[in-house]
């Protein structure tokens, strides 16, 4: 028994070491500066926690007794600590011996090593690591292992009081967003020096965590009055965010919420109706370009010539931002119907390929119709939104507009989800033939999914154009579709709060991690793969999607009322309830 605990500890330690090595290699310690070692230790503690609690099932959590768990944790920490120390010492020796490893491992710099040890870079270059340095490193990681084990025990004791009826964990979840919001506001006051040069980044991260935790809090709250009061308080907190964040933070949040708008639209097409659309960027592009035509007709040679020949002055915006909203949305919605008609009969992979092509066609059209769209030179001087003569084009106001837009779209999506149409979408996703035989008009239902999804993307596109003021075909590549689809999947398909969370994780985090930007794609690829294995339903799944992918969650099935020789109660769900 003890041997097995140690073995398991060694295994977990090795995994943690591999992750740590990756983080060191991409230069995270340098980014973190003086707090590198404690932050990495904290991160490792979290890794240990996840590894020790042993997978997805609640049973695994309950199975382990404290002593072996602590042993496993300590072993894991010790192992990862020793390995890390050996790795760093090895690199330091190589550097001291004059071997230039940098061309091969581009972020292995003395600074990086020094940050981990809390010493001057010169000491690393000279191979003079302080004798206590590695001990401290090992000790800290061992502590992380023990902390990981303690976290498992803590989680277990918290879970014993159930989630739904006022357990401690539930209250923690509800209070957390407010704590984070307070932290964000506190970080903004001039006297605070926490985080040093990276204070802004820390603040942005905390703001995103606050929004993310707010979504979990809403889910933890009891339905009815408690949830409504909480939602109101959270909205007030959220509304305050744009006024306390600085320009850069607001502009990051602006783009995050523009993607939330997009994600909510795509969520209808993919999450609700189950139609895999890889060309979703087309509607975003249509929205952006139509708004550009309307607000900067002079930028397009052909369009301005047409207007002049009609006697309409082309040197000023045709309509205001607000009047343009229904026009761009309708144009994008029409695009949705136009895409929808030819793909009505396609399913699955075939549908994905055709929509992928559609997205590219729109981009190539923008690129090559240079009379109309100015080709790769783009449309310049798109008008920002104005309200009573006040320019709303700054990052803060764009963030506010994106918040409002996302709010309206989320509300509409939520209402649709519970409607006759929403039920038809889900029925169609589950079994198209039976849905039709049950009375769902497939043509109408599919086209409505494409059109409504496109409407929302069009609105997002318009706001995007107003934010950028200059738009180019390159803004609308396949990657926008892929990013949007990824955020829907990561958040949890079919889940409205999941979209917000996915956008924060996929569009917001990379901004926080600017320093390791070039490794972003690799990191996200790994993240996606791990997530699909550990949590295929997404971070914050809709209850329905969770039911589809996990057996637990639904009420346990009772034996059939009339089953007469007593059969094992679960014999039918064994084969019927497959993953």
């Amino acid at each position: 028994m003890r041997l097995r605990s140690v073995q398991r500890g060694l295994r977990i330690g090795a995994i943690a070491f591999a992750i740590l090595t990756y983080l060191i290699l991409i230069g995270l310690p340098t980014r973190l500066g003086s707090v590198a070692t404690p932050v990495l230790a904290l991160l490792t503690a979290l890794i240990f926690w996840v590894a020790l609690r042993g997978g997805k099932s609640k049973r695994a959590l309950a199975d382990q007794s404290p002593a072996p768990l602590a042993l496993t944790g300590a072993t894991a920490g010790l192992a990862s600590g020793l390995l890390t120390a050996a790795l760093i010492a090895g690199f330091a020796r190589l550097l001291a011996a004059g071997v230039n490893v940098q061309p091969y491992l581009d972020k292995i710099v003395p600074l990086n090593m020094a940050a981990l040890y809390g010493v001057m870079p010169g000491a690393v270059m000279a191979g003079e690591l302080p004798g206590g340095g590695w001990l401290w490193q090992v000790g800290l990681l061992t502590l992380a292992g023990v902390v990981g084990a303690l976290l498992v025990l803590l989680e277990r004791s918290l879970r014993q009081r159930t989630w739904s009826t006022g357990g401690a964990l539930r209250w923690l979840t509800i209070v957390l967003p407010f704590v984070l919001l307070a932290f964000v506001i506190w970080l903004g006051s001039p006297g605070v020096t926490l985080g040093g040069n990276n204070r802004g980044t820390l603040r942005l991260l905390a703001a995103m965590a606050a929004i993310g935790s707010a979504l979990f809090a809403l889910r933890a709250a009891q339905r009815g009055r408690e949830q409504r009061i909480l939602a109101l308080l959270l909205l007030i907190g959220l509304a305050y965010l744009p006024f306390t964040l600085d320009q850069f933070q607001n502009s990051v949040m602006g783009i995050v919420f523009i993607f939330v708008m997009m994600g909510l639209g795509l969520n209808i097409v993919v999450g609700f109706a189950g139609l895999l659309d890889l060309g979703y960027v087309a509607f975003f592009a249509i929205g952006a370009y139509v708004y550009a035509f309307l607000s900067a007709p002079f930028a397009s040679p052909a369009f301005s010539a047409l207007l002049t020949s009609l006697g309409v002055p082309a040197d000023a915006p045709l309509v205001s931002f607000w009047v343009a909203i229904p026009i761009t949305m309708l144009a994008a919605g029409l695009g949705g119907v136009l895409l929808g008609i030819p793909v009505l009969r396609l399913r699955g992979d075939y549908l994905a390929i055709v929509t992928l092509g559609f997205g590219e066609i729109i981009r190539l059209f923008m690129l090559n119709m240079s009379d109309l769209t100015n080709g790769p030179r783009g449309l310049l001087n798109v008008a920002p939104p104005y309200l009573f003569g006040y320019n709303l084009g700054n990052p803060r106001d764009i963030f506010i507009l994106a918040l409002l837009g996302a709010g309206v779209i989320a509300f509409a999506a939520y209402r649709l989800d519970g409607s006759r149409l929403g039920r038809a979408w889900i029925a169609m996703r589950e079994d198209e033939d039976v849905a039709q035989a049950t009375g769902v008009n497939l043509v109408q239902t599919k086209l409505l999914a494409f059109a409504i999804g496109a409407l929302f993307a069009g609105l997002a596109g318009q706001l995007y154009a107003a934010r950028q003021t200059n738009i180019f075909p390159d803004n609308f590549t396949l990657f926008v579709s892929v990013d949007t689809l990824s955020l829907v999947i990561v958040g949890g398909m079919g889940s409205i709060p999941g979209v917000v969370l996915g956008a924060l994780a996929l569009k917001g985090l990379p901004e926080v991690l600017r320093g390791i930007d070039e490794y972003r794609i690799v990191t996200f690829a790994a993240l996606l793969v791990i997530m699909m294995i550990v949590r295929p339903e997404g971070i914050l799944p809709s209850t329905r999607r969770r039911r589809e992918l996990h057996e637990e969650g639904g009420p346990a099935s009772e034996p059939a009322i009339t089953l007469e020789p007593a059969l094992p109660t679960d014999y039918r769900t064994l084969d019927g309830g497959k993953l």
Partner: protein
Amino acid sequence: MALLEAQAVTKIFGGLVAVGSVDLAVEERAIVSLIGPNGAGKTTFFNCLTGLYRPEEGDILFDGVSLVGLRPDQIIAQGMARTYQNIRLFGSMTAIENVLVGQHVRLRSTPLGAIFQSPGTRREEQRAEQQARELLAFVGLAGKGDMIARNLPYGDQRLLEVARALGSRPRLLLLDEPAAGMNPRETDAMMELIRRLRNELGITILLIEHDMKVVMSISDRVSVLDYGKKIAEGHPDEVRRDPRVIEAYLGAGVLAGHNA
């Protein structure tokens, strides 16, 4: 005039005549069974009736209106609903949601109405949910409305399929092996339910069934298919004595009163 009249319906897959010129008439408020050995074309015939397949020849008249060429969702709107041989519920939806999807053709709410929760939409949704609960209670699933369809016991899933079909307020209900895989007690309950569908709701029933006890005790008329051809038709007692039927399908065991 019969409620449903199939005239020389033919369905061919490649070189195989799955259904060959089958005539069938179902009178209003009758319970008619369609029997035959495996592969006789019974389910194919059902699929032709409900628009999943388009028959190569023949016509299908429902209340005097031809159904050939209509889409399945248009056919169910005419008043003909069905269940499936291998249960095909919307597994991740709750029981009540399944019935609500069944009511789809009888509801009118629009997307805009849903977003703004117009009074009309709200009233319609409330009424629909009320009705769905009543239907669940009618088939014997009272109180199970909020259970996930997939988690329901097998017998209940069959009942839920019936409730879903009833959601469209059909005049004719096609049941594809409603008692398949059920034990004797569940089968009795199902037979009782089928009788109540006819007697209390006035629904005409056409069913495919292998369980001869069910067929013989509840049917007003029985039609027998074999290799896509109708080989016999009539009152259950006549059919069970028909030598061609015995040869094709029933066997001596049934004559002695046992299941096939």
